[in-house]
């Protein structure tokens, strides 16, 4: 200590031995400055930088010439990332004591490295820009800028704090705590850091805030949380044991859910499978049906062919039968002819064979047969017709019309000139109710025997029949 008035070294007395000035108070002020410096040094040693800075500023307020305090303050500022403030203190320190001053080395260290100086300048500019962004409410840009600042100067506490504040504002508690923990590593007892950290802890874990923010580890029913550096470890706690009805209920719910899942996953596939099988069976049945239908169509075609063949064959058979019939008719005609040749008077014998030849056979016969038959009629037809007429007329008179018809028919067949036989035949048909045959016979009488009494009578009977029929 030197006297403030004359600059003489002071003794242990409360006055200056050189000029006699009262230095008691002056000594106390210098002692206080030194004491504060010691306090600051102690705080700086335990990395309480903000506390050390405050105390060292007080020390310098007491004694601005306390070079050690000023140099230490510069160091503290430099460690906090406040490079310009540090330079300021060191420059002032160098001005106060230019020789044997470590501040000179500090200044040289910074100023000789131009790139480092530029980096420091850029860092400060970006920090100021980030602060401007915050004031303009461009928080995203501010975050980006601050991250760049911290990449250049990781010890810039104010940048860390501002970034933490932005994270707190955005409710990104974990990020905020990360930044604040970094601050704590640089400056352990920074008030702003501690306050922000308390806020982040309270917001991220409210139940801890109720109990107190001092504990780091908390055992809860659900989980155990604790901090390990920058990481938050969450450990699952003890689980509750299932008991009684609640266990059964939970199991029941699980079973129901499992069944529902099985139904939703398995059932559609099964349904699809059954559908596919059904469709395959239907397809097979349809194919069989088509085959059967084709077979049926083929069979029907065969049936048609066979039916046609059958009809053809039946026609042939009928033709053959008719031929046989014709053969029989020819035989009868020949026999009749033979009897006539043997004995023309044997009318009975001739009639026996001639009666066996029907009108249908005559119609279907060959020309030779027809000629021979006509010849026989010419030769023996009238006598045969008379015989038949007599028999038929007798039956007609007796009222036995059914018996009379064949004889009268034969009579007319043998003798086409016998109109009476035809008339009586028509009458017999009329009497027996065979109206159509009666009409044909009457018409035949009118046609073959016009202008005769028989024709008139036939006409009358015909009108009578038609009137009765209408």
């Amino acid at each position: 200590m030197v006297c403030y008035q004359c600059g003489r070294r002071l003794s242990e007395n409360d006055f200056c031995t050189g000029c006699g000035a009262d230095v008691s108070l002056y000594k106390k002020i210098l002692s206080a400055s030194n004491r504060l410096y010691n306090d600051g040094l102690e705080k700086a040693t335990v990395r309480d930088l903000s506390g050390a800075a405050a105390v060292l500023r007080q020390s310098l307020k007491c004694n601005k010439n306390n070079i050690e305090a000023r140099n230490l303050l510069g160091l503290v500022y430099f460690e906090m990332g406040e490079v310009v403030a540090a330079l300021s203190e060191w420059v002032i320190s160098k001005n106060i004591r230019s020789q044997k001053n470590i501040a000179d080395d500090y200044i040289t260290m910074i100023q000789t490295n131009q790139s480092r100086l530029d980096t420091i300048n850029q860092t400060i500019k970006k920090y100021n820009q980030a602060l401007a962004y915050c004031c303009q409410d461009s928080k995203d840009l501010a975050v980006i800028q601050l991250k760049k600042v911290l990449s250049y100067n990781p010890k810039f506490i104010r940048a860390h704090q501002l970034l933490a504040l932005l994270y707190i504002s955005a409710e990104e508690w974990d990020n905020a705590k990360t930044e604040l923990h970094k601050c704590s590593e640089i400056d352990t007892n920074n008030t702003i850091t501690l306050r922000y950290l308390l806020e982040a802890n309270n917001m991220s874990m409210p139940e801890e805030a109720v109990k107190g923010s001092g504990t780091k580890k908390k055992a809860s029913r659900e989980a155990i949380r604790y901090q390990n550096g920058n990481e938050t470890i969450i450990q699952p706690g003890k689980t509750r044991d299932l008991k009684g009805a609640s266990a059964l209920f939970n199991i029941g719910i699980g079973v129901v859910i499992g069944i529902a899942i099985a139904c939703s996953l398995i059932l559609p596939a099964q349904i699809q499978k059954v559908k596919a099988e059904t469709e395959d069976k239907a397809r097979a049945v349809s194919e069989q049906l088509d085959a059967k239908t084709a077979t049926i169509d083929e069979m029907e075609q065969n049936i048609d062919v066979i039916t046609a063949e059958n009809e053809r064959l039946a026609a042939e058979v009928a033709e053959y039968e008719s031929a046989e019939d014709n053969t029989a008719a020819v035989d009868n005609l020949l026999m009749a002819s033979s009897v006539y040749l043997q004995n023309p008077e044997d009318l009975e014998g001739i009639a026996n064979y001639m009666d066996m030849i029907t009108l249908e056979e005559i119609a279907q016969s060959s020309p030779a047969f027809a000629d021979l038959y006509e010849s026989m009629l010419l030769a023996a037809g009238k006598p045969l017709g008379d015989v038949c007429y007599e028999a038929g007329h007798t039956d007609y008179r007796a009222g036995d019309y059914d018996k009379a018809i064949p004889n009268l028919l034969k009579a007319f067949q043998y003798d086409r000139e016998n109109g009476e036989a035809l008339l009586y035949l028509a009458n017999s048909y009329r009497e027996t109710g065979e109206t159509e045959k009666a009409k044909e016979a009457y018409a035949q009488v009118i046609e073959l025997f016009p202008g005769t009494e028989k024709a008139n009578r036939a006409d009358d009977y015909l009108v009578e029949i038609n009137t009765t029929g209408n």
Partner: protein
Amino acid sequence: MINFEEELKKFHPSLEVEDAEEAIYNQDLTDMTDLLIKMVKKVDTEIESEE
């Protein structure tokens, strides 16, 4: 609960390297010893004037 706006007011722009010189010149380096000396001189002046 931290108020972002209120907290932001506490953050001031950092001095740039170019501004360091001006900041140093403008810094008030008055300390307690200066005040003491000033007070002593004042007292001495008053005493001399009384005499």
